[in-house]
C-alpha cells in the first residue's frame, strides 16, 4: 500500500538530508514502530508514509513515494493519512468530544457515522463532555478518533506516550490494536512497548534505515542500569509536614502528606496522571500554598530561592539570544555576583560549554532540556525539582540526565522528580514514593 524507493528529504532543498535514500514497503493494516535517536528522521519518515509531508514540512522531497499506487511525492491523496501529534491539547479544536470527532467526518455522514466512530473508540459515553475536562490520555483518544473519523488508510502517531502515564499508554495501544485494516505507524522512544505492539520495527539513524525486522526479533535497548548504591544521605534540606491541599474543596489532593528531602537523596515521585506529582513539586517551589501544614527549607531561606524547578516543557521559559544569556538570567535576577561566570561554569559542568553562544531555539529538544536544567542550576539551588524530565528524551539524553542528577545528589544536593518512567526512577532514585491522588504509598 505504501512504497518508497530512494526517498530523500532535505529541509531547505539543499541542506543536510533528513531522509537519505529510504526504501520501504508497508502493507495494508500493518503495525509499524519507528525507533531511533532524536533527529534520526522518524517523524519526517512518518509524515511521508502517511502522505502528509507537504502539509507538515516545508522542505523538498525527492525519490519515489507511492501511496495506494499513486505518485505522492508532491503530496498524498486527500484523506489518505491521519496524524496524531505528541501533545493532544494543541490539535483539538472543538468544545465537546462529539463536536471534535464530527469535525473530521465526511459531509453527509450524519449521526450514524458519528455514533459508529464513537462506539469504535469507546467515546460514546462521554460524547457531550467538554474536552477541557478530560485527562491527557482521553484527549489523545479524542485526537485519534478525530482522525479516524475521516477513515484514513494510514495513521501516524508521533511520540504519543510523552504525556501519558503507563496505564493511559497501555489503553492507547489497546485502541491502536483494534484499528482493523488501517495501517498504523508509531514513532516513539519506548522501544519495549513498540516491540510488544508492532508487527515490525524500523530503526532509523541519520536519515537511513539501519534495521527493518519483525517486531518479535527486535532487541530493544536495555533499560538504564538500576541504581544499587544507597547514596550518602545527610541532613534535611526540605521538610514537608502534614500537608493539606485541594484545588477544589470537594476533591482534596493531599491530606496530611509529609516528606523530608535530605542531602544526597534523589526521590522519585511515581503515580498516574492526576495523582498529585506536579502539584507536590509546585508546592515545594512555593508556587502553591498548602491549605494547612508546613513546607520549609532547612536553610530558612524562601522556597522560591532555595528550590530550583525544571518544568516539563523547556520552551515555557527559554527566551534569550544565547544559551549563556539564558543561564545567566536566574543568577542575575537573584542578584548573585558574576552571573556570566556562573552560567559558564554550569554549562561546562553539563557538557554544554560548546553551545554557549548558540541561540536556544535552534537546539534539539534534548539539548533544550539540558539548557533548561542548566539555567536553573546556575542559581545555586541545593534542592532541585524536575517535572517529567524524561519526556521526549532518547536513550543518549536519558543516560546523560541520569548521570547529572546522580552527580548533583552526590555533591550534597537533594533531587525530587516526578516521572512516569519506572526504569528511570530505578536508575536514579535513592528512594521512590508512589502517589495516589495525594495519598502516599511508599
Amino acid at each position, binding site marked *: 500500500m505504501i512504497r518508497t524507493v530512494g526517498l530523500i528529504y532535505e529541509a531547505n532543498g539543499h541542506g543536510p538530508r533528513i531522509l537519505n535514500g529510504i526504501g520501504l514497503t508497508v502493507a495494508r493494516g500493518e503495525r509499524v514502530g519507528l525507533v531511533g535517536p532524536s533527529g534520526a528522521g522518524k517523524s519526517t519518515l512518518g509524515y511521508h508514509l502517511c502522505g*502528509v509531508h*507537504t*502539509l*507538515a514540512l516545508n522542505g523538498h522531497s525527492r525519490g519515489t513515494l507511492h501511496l495506494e499506487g499513486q505518485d505522492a511525492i*508532491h*503530496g*498524498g*491523496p*486527500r*484523506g489518505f*493519512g*491521519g*496524524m496524531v*501529534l505528541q*501533545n493532544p491539547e*494543541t*490539535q*483539538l*479544536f*472543538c*468544545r*465537546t468530544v*462529539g*463536536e471534535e470527532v*464530527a*469535525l*473530521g*467526518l465526511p459531509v453527509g455522514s450524519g449521526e450514524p457515522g458519528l455514533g459508529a466512530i464513537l462506539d469504535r473508540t469507546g467515546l460514546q459515553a462521554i460524547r457531550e463532555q*467538554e474536552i*477541557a475536562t478530560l485527562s491527557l490520555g482521553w484527549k489523545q483518544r479524542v*485526537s485519534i478518533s*478525530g*482522525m479516524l*473519523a*475521516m477513515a484514513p488508510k494510514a495513521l501516524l502517531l508521533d511520540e504519543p506516550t510523552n504525556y501519558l502515564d503507563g496505564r493511559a499508554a497501555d489503553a492507547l495501544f489497546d485502541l491502536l490494536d483494534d484499528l482493523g485494516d488501517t495501517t498504523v505507524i508509531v514513532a516513539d522512544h519506548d522501544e519495549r512497548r513498540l516491540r510488544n505492539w508492532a508487527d515490525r520495527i524500523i530503526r532509523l539513524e541519520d536519515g537511513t534505515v539501519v534495521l527493518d525486522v519483525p517486531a518479535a526479533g527486535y532487541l530493544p535497548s536495555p533499560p538504564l542500569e538500576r541504581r544499587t548504591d544507597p547514596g550518602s544521605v545527610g541532613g534535611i534540606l526540605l521538610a514537608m509536614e502534614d500537608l493539606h491541599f485541594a484545588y477544589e474543596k470537594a476533591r482534596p489532593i493531599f491530606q496530611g502528606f509529609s516528606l523530608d528531602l535530605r542531602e544526597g537523596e534523589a526521590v522519585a515521585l511515581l503515580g498516574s496522571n492526576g495523582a498529585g506529582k506536579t502539584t507536590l513539586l509546585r508546592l515545594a*517551589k512555593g*508556587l502553591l500554598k498548602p491549605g494547612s501544614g508546613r513546607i520549609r527549607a532547612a536553610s530558612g531561606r524562601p522556597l*522560591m*530561592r532555595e528550590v*530550583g*524547578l525544571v*518544568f516539563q516543557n523547556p*520552551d*515555557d*521559559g*527559554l*527566551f534569550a539570544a544565547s544559551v549563556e544569556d539564558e543561564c545567566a*538570567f*536566574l*543568577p*542575575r*535576577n*537573584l542578584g548573585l555576583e558574576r552571573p556570566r561566570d556562573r552560567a559558564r561554569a554550569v554549562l561546562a559542568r553539563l557538557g554544554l560549554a560548546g553551545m554557549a553562544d548558540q541561540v536556544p*531555539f535552534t537546539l534539539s529538544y534534548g539539548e533544550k532540556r539540558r539548557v533548561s536544567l542548566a*539555567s*536553573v542550576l546556575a*542559581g545555586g539551588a541545593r534542592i532541585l525539582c524536575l517535572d517529567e524530565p524524561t519526556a521526549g528524551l532518547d536513550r543518549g539524553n536519558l543516560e546523560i540526565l541520569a548521570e547529572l542528577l546522580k552527580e548533583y545528589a552526590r555533591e550534597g544536593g537533594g533531587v525530587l522528580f516526578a516521572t512516569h518512567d519506572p526504569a528511570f526512577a530505578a536508575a536514579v532514585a535513592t528512594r521512590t514514593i508512589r502517589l495516589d491522588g495525594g495519598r502516599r504509598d511508599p
Partner: protein
Amino acid sequence: MTWRLPVQGRLVVFLGASLALSVVQAPWLLYGAAGVLCLLACRQRLPRRMARLLAWTTLMPLPWMAVLFVLAGREATGTWSAGAVWGLVRLAPYGTRIGCLMLANLMFLNATPLPELMAVLRRLAIPDRIALFLMTLIRFLPSVLQEVRRVVEAQRCRGLERRRLLTPSGLLALAVPLFLAQIQKSHDLALSLEIRGYASSKQP
C-alpha cells in the same frame, strides 16, 4: 430561546447583538443589555469555567484601564479629582461594552457546536481559511491567557519578580516564549485541520 434557534438564526442574532453593542452610545442601554445578557447566561447555564474566564478577562485589565481613563480625565479637566470622576464615568460604559461583547461571544460559542457553525459558513460560501481564522480567533483568545499564566510562572521560578514584568527585559522574557508557544500551537492546530480536509491548499 435564542440558543434553540437554528445555527443560522443564532449567527444572525449574535452578529446583530455584537454590532448593536459596538455602536450603541447611551450608557443606560448598555447597562440594560448587560442585565439581559446576564439573565440569559444564567438561563443558558454557562459552564463555570467559561464564567470564571469571562470574569477574569473582564476584571483583570480594569485597574490599568482606570489609570488610563483617570489620566485622560486629568488632561481634559486639569484637576485630579474632576479627572477621576471624568475618567470613571467614561470607564463604566466602556468596560460594560467589552464585558457584554465577551459574554455574547461565549454564550454563542457555548450554544453552537463548531462543526455546525463551519457547515453554515461553508454554505454561505465563506472560504475555509477565513471561517477557520475567525473561529480560531474567537475560540482561542481565552487560551492565550492560560499560556500567559504558565509563562509568567516559569519566569517567576527563574527569579523574575512580578514588578519587573513590565520592564523591557521582563516583557521580553514573557513575550518571546509566549509568541513561540502560540506559533507552535497554531502550526499544530492548522496541520490537524488541514489533514482533516479543512482549508487545504497544498494537497493536490
